[in-house]
């Protein structure tokens, strides 16, 4: 679930990399990802994770000395994970200080960090006045995520539509999704080129648009092609999740959750996907 959901969000990834020391390991001693020291440390905090049958472990926020300061469910949404990261930093501000040299980075990089921390006013203040195209694109993203869709649209209209055609197409597609206009979303995302740096993201959301337009088989074919083309990629994980939750007729009647057995997904995953993909249910809620 985390890999196919929150771990595709640049804000979650950015915060984990810039304000935490992230680590994962497998509780099984037989796994290539096992770590006996990590297991000892974690089972002191969470004894219930020490057995052979354990609940799905959450993400734990812990000091180096072993004080558990927070956690978030494995099945949390992007906004829930982001909220938990920001919350634990806000409540324990001594762990949230900027790294050495952080203030010497470009203003766009600093604006990104403010945005990850939920400090959008500071991010916008940094990017006020004359802006580069990349900075304007980022301003449009901030506005879209804040729900200021008209502002986002206006910022995009000021960009060179030929030079930044892919970026603009993707942003317009995501804006249309936010407005619930999946026809426009499809048109915008279909215009994204194969060569663009965010092509997997554009293809994933094109599949989502098709799905909501009732073109379920075509949506699944789009996700399948994405996975075949890009392999291990954050939006392949997300497409993998969408694929497992659907059939050519629509949402799968019995959507799978965690299992160590049974049918695998296209990427060979068994589970950790969760039952409810918000991208698939958003319009039918």
């Amino acid at each position, binding site marked *: 679930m985390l890999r196919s959901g929150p*771990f595709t969000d640049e804000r979650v990834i950015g915060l984990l990399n810039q304000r*935490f*020391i992230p*680590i994962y390991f497998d509780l099984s001693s037989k796994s290539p990802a096992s770590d006996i020291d990590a297991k000892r*440390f974690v089972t002191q905090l969470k004894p219930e*994770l020490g057995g052979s049958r354990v609940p799905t472990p959450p993400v734990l926020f812990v000091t180096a000395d072993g004080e558990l300061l927070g956690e978030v469910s494995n099945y949390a949404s992007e906004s829930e994970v982001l909220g938990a990261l920001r919350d634990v930093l806000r409540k324990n501000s001594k762990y949230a200080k900027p790294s050495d040299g952080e203030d010497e980075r470009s203003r766009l990089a600093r604006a990104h960090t403010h945005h990850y921390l939920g400090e959008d006013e500071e991010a916008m203040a940094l990017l006020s006045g004359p802006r580069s195209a990349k900075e304007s694109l980022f301003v449009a993203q901030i506005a879209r995520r804040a729900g200021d869709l008209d502002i986002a649209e206006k910022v995009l209209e000021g960009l060179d539509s030929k030079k930044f055609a892919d970026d603009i197409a993707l942003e317009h597609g995501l804006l249309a999704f936010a407005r619930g206009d999946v026809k426009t979303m499809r048109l915008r995302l279909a215009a994204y080129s194969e060569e663009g740096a965010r092509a997997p993201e554009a293809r994933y959301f094109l599949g989502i648009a098709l799905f909501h337009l009732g073109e379920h088989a075509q949506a699944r074919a789009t996700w399948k092609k994405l996975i075949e083309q890009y392999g*291990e990629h954050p939006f392949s994980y997300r497409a993998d999740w969408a694929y497992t939750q659907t059939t050519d007729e629509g949402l799968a009647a019995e959507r799978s959750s965690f299992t160590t057995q049974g049918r695998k997904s296209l990427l060979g995953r068994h589970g950790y996907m969760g039952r409810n993909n918000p991208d698939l249910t958003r319009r039918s809620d």
Partner: protein
Amino acid sequence: MLLATLLLLSLPQDPALEHPVRLDRTGIVWALPFENARERARLEGRLLAIKPVAFGTTATGCW
């Protein structure tokens, strides 16, 4: 030559090369192994964000 080969084989391996994390493409810079992560958390004044996986990883890094 034999001595050089033996010396090379005895060098500690980068944990990331032997760990399924090498296939991870999330963009998250996972710290490995745990004791290194813990030391970094101390030195850098950061919290550890620990994701234990319940018996779900395979040699291909699946979880």
